[in-house]
């Protein structure tokens, strides 16, 4: 049992981060929670002795995906702002 404790902690961290990513509704904040989720998953994979997958997860899940979400949000917000202003005119 004692040797399973690190894996259990990893699983709990992933569950908490995953639930958090769903519950946070603002996309910008969500991307940060997503990045934390990526980090937790990478730690879990490392604990399960899969460092190759952990590296992929770290690079894609905690850096690349949140960045793409942030860039998309920036584009959409800029567009929405200009359309709102147009309506006011």
């Amino acid at each position, binding site marked *: 049992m004692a040797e*399973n404790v690190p894996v259990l902690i990893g699983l709990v961290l992933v569950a908490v981060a995953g639930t958090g990513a769903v519950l946070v509704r603002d996309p910008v904040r969500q991307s940060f929670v997503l990045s934390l989720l990526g980090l937790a998953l990478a730690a879990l994979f490392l604990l399960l002795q899969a460092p*190759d997958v952990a590296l992929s997860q770290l*690079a894609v899940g905690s850096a690349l995906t949140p*960045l*793409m979400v942030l860039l998309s949000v920036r*584009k959409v917000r*800029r*567009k929405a702002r*200009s359309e709102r202003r*147009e309506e006011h005119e």
Partner: protein
Amino acid sequence: MSMRLRLWVLAAGVLGTATLFVLACAELPGFGGTWHPYGDRAVHAALARHTANTIASVNFDQRALDTLGEESILFGSVLGTLVLLRQTRDERRLPPEPARVAPPVRRYALIALPVTLLIGLYVVAHGQLSPGGGFQGGVVVATSLHLLYIAIDYRALERIRPVGLYEVADAAGEAGYLLIGAAALLTGAAFLTNFLPYGTFNTLSSGGTVPLLNAAIGVEVAAGIVVLLARFLDQAVEIVSGRDEAEDET
């Protein structure tokens, strides 16, 4: 098809999948145990081919065709993004303004950039020896270049990032993988067979075609991610629609 019939089809499919899944899982080795039939065979085959990292041996030798599929998926998605995020007729490019960056952020990013780049190249080069490989290292290399956007601004990033060149590199990486696979045909072996001499175990040149395929993936992934992020950044920073433009002038 009526709703009722559809539900029956769905039920048949779900039931069939569930049965097959349970049957397949019944013989699985227990979680965390020491006995694993596929693992044992994969490690044995990897050592026989002088590849220190078994995962690299599985990815680029024993199951190289699967990796070709994965690589092609990435290649296809980058291509799709390129088409979707292109500059359309009613859009216009505004040159990005120089941005003010807080000095600590600039210092940190400028120090982290070369370190990250080196780590990425190391991970690609040592794919056949230690955890990592072309995919992981490629993503790290691509990410490291974008630290320039954080450290200075978008114009600085654009200067070191001729997108056309990276598009060519992306295609060259994909083509390189296919050509190395096809080269095995010339020796009379099957597509993607490891036909080169295996070399000395645990050295950079060991593993036959594994380091070559690994490098091809590294180039493809690094260039592909740079191109992908370039399109996203262009849309987020530079490209404005006709309406935005009119608004900017008022």
